[in-house]
């Protein structure tokens, strides 16, 4: 019994310590974002890495997500004779929910894990220490560009995901299943307003911050060689995915 209490206490302390370190890391990064100079070259490199190189994956997953939603939606709506609501259904579910969440999860799997591994390897091979010895701020040099790049690329990739998804839904719902082309788009545009679009933008922006924060933190403080980097990468991906879903529910329930 005593052993159980002790291990619970140890786990609680470790969790609190980790949360404190993550909070300090985020605070330091946010302060450093406003400190000149901006690492322009690093920022462009990160935008290319997170954004351009995720584009194909986002187009592919966006198209099939839209197609699946349209297919299942059409089957369900037909039972009630409501096929004309397919456009709003596909549009709203992609704009408000599926676009931000699934694009963020896809980018986490592709770029977030790679960022953790890259920073982790830099840590264990003392490249981050080398920056400190050169009197350079490693957070300013390595982490800030990732935060800024995530802030720029996540909403853009989300908009690509949603656009492609809507057209994917159109192909299935209209071209393959014979729904009305005019109703698909006109119903969608009358059902969705700017608040839905802003909701998607806010969500994807906040998911970008979560992925940048967790991925960088886990990589920056990776330890114990190759196994430590592998462990940090796994932790980063799992934690990003969980936080994205939790934050999605929170932001969705607060800003209905």
């Amino acid at each position: 019994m005593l052993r159980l209490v002790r291990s619970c206490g140890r786990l609680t302390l470790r969790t609190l310590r980790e949360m404190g370190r993550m909070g300090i890391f985020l605070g330091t990064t946010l302060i450093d974002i406003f400190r000149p100079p901006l690492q322009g070259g690093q920022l462009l490199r990160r935008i290319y890495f997170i954004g351009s190189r995720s584009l194909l994956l986002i187009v592919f997953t966006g198209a099939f997500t839209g197609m699946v939603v349209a297919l299942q939606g059409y089957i369900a709506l037909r039972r009630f004779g409501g096929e004309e609501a397919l456009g709003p259904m596909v549009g709203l579910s992609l704009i408000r929910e599926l676009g931000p969440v699934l694009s963020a999860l896809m980018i986490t799997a592709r770029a977030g894990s790679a960022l953790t591994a890259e920073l982790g390897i830099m840590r264990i091979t003392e490249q981050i220490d080398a920056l400190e010895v050169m009197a350079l701020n490693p957070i300013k040099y390595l982490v800030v560009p990732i935060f800024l790049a995530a802030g720029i690329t996540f909403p853009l990739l989300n908009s690509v995901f949603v656009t492609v998804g809507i057209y994917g839904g159109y192909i299935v719902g209209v071209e393959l299943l014979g729904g009305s082309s005019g109703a698909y788009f006109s119903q969608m545009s009358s059902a969705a307003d700017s608040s839905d679009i802003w909701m998607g933008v806010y969500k994807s922006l906040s998911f970008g911050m979560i992925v940048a924060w967790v991925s960088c933190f886990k990589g920056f403080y990776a330890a114990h060689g190759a196994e430590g980097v592998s462990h940090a990468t796994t932790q980063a991906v799992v934690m990003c995915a969980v936080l994205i879903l939790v934050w999605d529910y929170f932001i969705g329930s607060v800003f209905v």
Partner: protein
Amino acid sequence: MIRLVNIRKSFGSQMVLSGINLDIPDRAVYVVVGVSGAGKSCLLKHLIGLMRPDSGQVWIDDIEITSLGRRALNRVRNRFGMLFQGGALFDSMSVYDNVAFPLREKTRKSEAEIRDKVHERLFQVGLAGVDAKFPSELSGGMRKRAALARSLVSDPEILLFDEPTTGLDPIRVNAIHRLILDLHQMLDFTAVIVSHEIPAVFSLATHIAMLHQGVIVESGSPSALQESNNPVVRQFMSGQLEGPIDVY
């Protein structure tokens, strides 16, 4: 002058440094030896603020660095260079960009001035003509020399070497030692070297100290250490299995 005063450092329940006192004179080649895991690299990292002691002081001339904030510490770090055990070259950059990196980031030199300086340092370490290669394309010895060129490019007053010859064959060990000596004579920096290359470091050092179980057990000139009666030093110098140093 670098002065360490009663430096203590532990990780969890493991005490690594338990009261280190050391005076390192200007322009010395000060070598710290000791068995693997004795805390030599940990000691070196205290000199440049990469680690902070649990207690004690680190003085660089008249500045005590353990209590400095980041900005003030960075001003002190500008006087340092460091050669890491694995080189710590940025693997996404070519050798040229690695060596040019501190100048591009820390100075307002023109690209032409940077090019001249980088080529000068690469020539001095015997790496002329490998500018375009990436660290992964270099041998262990070449990586160390490229890292040495990078640590020298800012003309540091104090250069720290963390096991500069680990993993190299005896010929390359001597070549790196000769290179450090030549560069020391040419550029007149203070060198603090952590090593366990016995007896090769004797030809290099002006001062030598032995770290064992968290304390300096002996220090002085290389000849004084070689003639020491301290059983720990004697066992370490001779490499014998029997003695006060617990091998396993």
